């Protein structure tokens, strides 16, 4: 069974989210990463409404929803109780909320939780508007987006303010771990949730989750939009630990913001008039600023193209092709001098020679000796990086 399966359904099917909902996916991925030994809170909002219509509960973990603005405060009460019971290290506390409950109405409680330094992971599912009440503007609605309370019109291009920079506000509170994530990168989100739960003190993860209804995009585009928003630089994925930037997801080749904006009804007005072009330019400028600020694109000098390093060994005798069972593959993990192999789309590649895989690990998160088809789908580069690498055989089921 693929890893994480036994916790893959801690957020059960049968909830009443719209088809293609990014937030139900986000919740499921966070629960999958967190596992059973947690207590979760939630704020009033879409996730809470579509997952707890009595008597149907999608939550397999202990879960409590109280009001719109107190998810963080309820969580701090749970944390205090667990501390009193001496169980806080076995049972972790996760507070959840949408963007509205987190950045606007519940911000006071959130700031209190952070300032008290309580041992809680707060996850904000950011679908960038108040969706449960029919798409109204929130503090995290992006610049230029239409909502029912910031409609586009002769005199308006949707939201006139920039998205509130909540992650930086979290860093300013001295929150121990602050990260942004997106449901298009499930492994990245999984890793960040697990890392956060291992840290004592306040943690904040802001997960970008598309909303087909609110953004008016095709329900099948949820994942692609969640990827495009990162690849355009609009929503940089980064990690801060104790105030220092420790991780950034590079975005390889930058994509223009239009590619991200065009499929969404909430940005359609930008394409309908001349003046819209200047707004798109402003959004592009915001994206470029993120690219600059977080160094999302590696400068050419430090970008080692794998092909040009391993040209030399290519003339070695063509290796005999054989089948690798997953168990056999796992022995080629590149550690203690052993060769490093990975599988992709059924073929097994020898990546021992690439310096980017020194010690059988890549970008400190991907391990050799395994099938990386899914993870590569999520990687900032495509399969072109495998071109020219010696194929050692094929992966058996």
């Amino acid at each position, binding site marked *: 069974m693929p890893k994480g399966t036994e916790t893959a359904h801690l957020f059960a099917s049968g909830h009443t989210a719209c088809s293609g909902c990014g937030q139900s996916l986000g919740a499921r991925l966070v629960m999958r990463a967190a596992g059973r030994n947690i207590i979760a809170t939630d704020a009033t909002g879409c996730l809470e409404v579509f997952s707890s219509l009595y008597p149907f509960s999608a939550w397999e973990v202990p879960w*409590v929803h109280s009001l719109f603005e107190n998810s963080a405060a309820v969580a*701090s009460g749970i944390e205090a109780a667990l501390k009193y019971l001496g169980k806080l290290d076995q049972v972790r506390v996760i507070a959840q909320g949408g963007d509205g409950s987190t950045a606007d109405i519940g911000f006071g409680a959130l700031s209190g939780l952070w300032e008290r330094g309580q041992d809680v992971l707060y996850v904000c599912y950011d679908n960038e508007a108040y969706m449960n009440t029919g798409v109204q503007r929130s503090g995290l609605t992006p610049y230029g987006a239409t909502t029912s309370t910031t409609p586009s019109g002769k005199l308006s291009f949707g939201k006139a303010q920039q998205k509130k920079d909540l992650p930086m506000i979290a860093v300013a509170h001295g929150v121990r771990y602050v990260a942004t994530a997106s449901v298009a990168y499930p492994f990245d989100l999984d890793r960040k949730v697990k890392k956060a739960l291992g840290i004592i003190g306040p943690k904040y993860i802001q997960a970008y989750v598309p909303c087909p209804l609110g953004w008016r995009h095709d329900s099948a585009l949820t994942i692609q939009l969640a990827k495009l928003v990162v690849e355009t630089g609009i929503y940089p994925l980064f990690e801060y630990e104790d105030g220092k930037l420790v991780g950034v997801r590079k975005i390889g080749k930058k994509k223009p913001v239009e590619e991200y904006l065009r499929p969404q009804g909430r940005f359609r007005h930008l394409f309908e008039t001349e003046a819209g072009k200047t707004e798109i330019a402003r959004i592009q400028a915001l994206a470029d600023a993120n690219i600059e600020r977080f160094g999302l694109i590696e400068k050419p000098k430090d970008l080692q193209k794998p092909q040009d390093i391993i040209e030399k060994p290519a003339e070695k005798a063509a290796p005999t092709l054989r089948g690798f069972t997953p168990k056999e593959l796992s022995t080629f993990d590149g550690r203690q001098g052993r060769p490093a192999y990975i599988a992709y789309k059924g073929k097994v590649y020898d990546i021992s020679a690439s310096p980017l895989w020194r010690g059988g690990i890549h970008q400190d998160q991907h391990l050799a000796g395994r099938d990386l088809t899914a993870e590569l789908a999520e990687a900032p580069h495509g399969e072109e990086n495998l071109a020219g690498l010696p194929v050692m055989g094929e992966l058996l089921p």
Partner: protein
Amino acid sequence: MVRKMLEGSQAVAQAVALCRPAVICAYPITPQTHIVAELADMVASGELKSVYVNADSEHSAASVCLGASATGVRTFTSTSSQGLLLMGEVLFNIAGMRLPVVLSCVNRAVSAPLNIWNDQQDSLSLRDSGTIQLYAENNQEAADLIYLAYRVAEDHRVLLPAMVCLDGYILSHAWEAVEIPTPKEVDAFLPPYSPLYKLDPEEPRTFGMYANPEVYTEARYMLQRAMEEAVTAIQEASHNFELIFSRPMPGILEEYRTEDATTVILGMGSLVSVAKDVADELRGQGEKVGVVKLVSYRPFPKEMVYEALKGASDVLVLEKGISLGSAGPLLLDVRSVLHGPHQPRVRGFVCGLGGRDVTRQTIKAALAEKELVDARFLDLKADLELEGMGQANRDRQPALARGARRKRAPRKEGINSA
């Protein structure tokens, strides 16, 4: 049992400590702050093992208690006036989730205008929240009602939040002798909290669900029945209290010299003491005056109030609150109970708002009132001009002439005709 001179707030804090709450959540607001400060000292000195959380607002303070209580431990918080109103949304929610959170409310007027002195408009305004409300006449009761509140709230027939109300400054900042029981005695009276449902990975549960029309009514009906069960629970607990602490505990209400009383004064909190003095004085002059002290305002003990008042021909309800646009909440409750075969005249008087003293004169003025008034404001200061209100209009607090057709008020005499 030891009797010692304590400030009201300290008495309450020590009572809370004896109940050993796991999580205490504090947010300052005059005049309750001494209670949470006293508890903070006890935690800091190691005398009290609770986890003490300093909240960022009263809304959060009540939410912290909600979360801790849902995790299956005993909690405590305290507030007053604006703080209680800010907690309002959460208290309704705690009641709906059937969590036995206990809090003290040191009663204080509500703004505007701003006023930090005592009246009961804050707690009275939350009478519909599903929170049990117990009112203390003095600091002995303020402390004793804490033990009672935990026991009743945590009773599985009830499972509701409970609030012990004591008059700001008049009780909270007054020093008087209070008996503080030993831990053993409290433990004999108050068993450990055993939750019906709790947040526990061993047995996951979903709290705070979304009920559509098919189930919501029934869930609220169960709340109303729980409140009714609380009357029985309070009686049993009070009886048990008297056995263990060998001290009177009128958990529901207390009748003072009402056996043959024709006139009965009914009230809550410290003003009852003054009423008792007046009753004694008038009894001395041969007038049959009695006093009923209501302790349990919610649940409102309908049968007991009826029994206590049915013998009287004249009932004066004195309360430190007004449901603006109607009459005092207590008056409305009492009148509705007495609507039945035997109907004494029941009249309502508003006094002691915003810290104005309730004196014997205040009560005698009420007794002197002959009209069938609903909410006659006592002690209005004659020398104060009230903008927009002519002198005649100001004193016009008419009793509703029951039955007589009301003449239309002439146009020019309207409030804003000045």
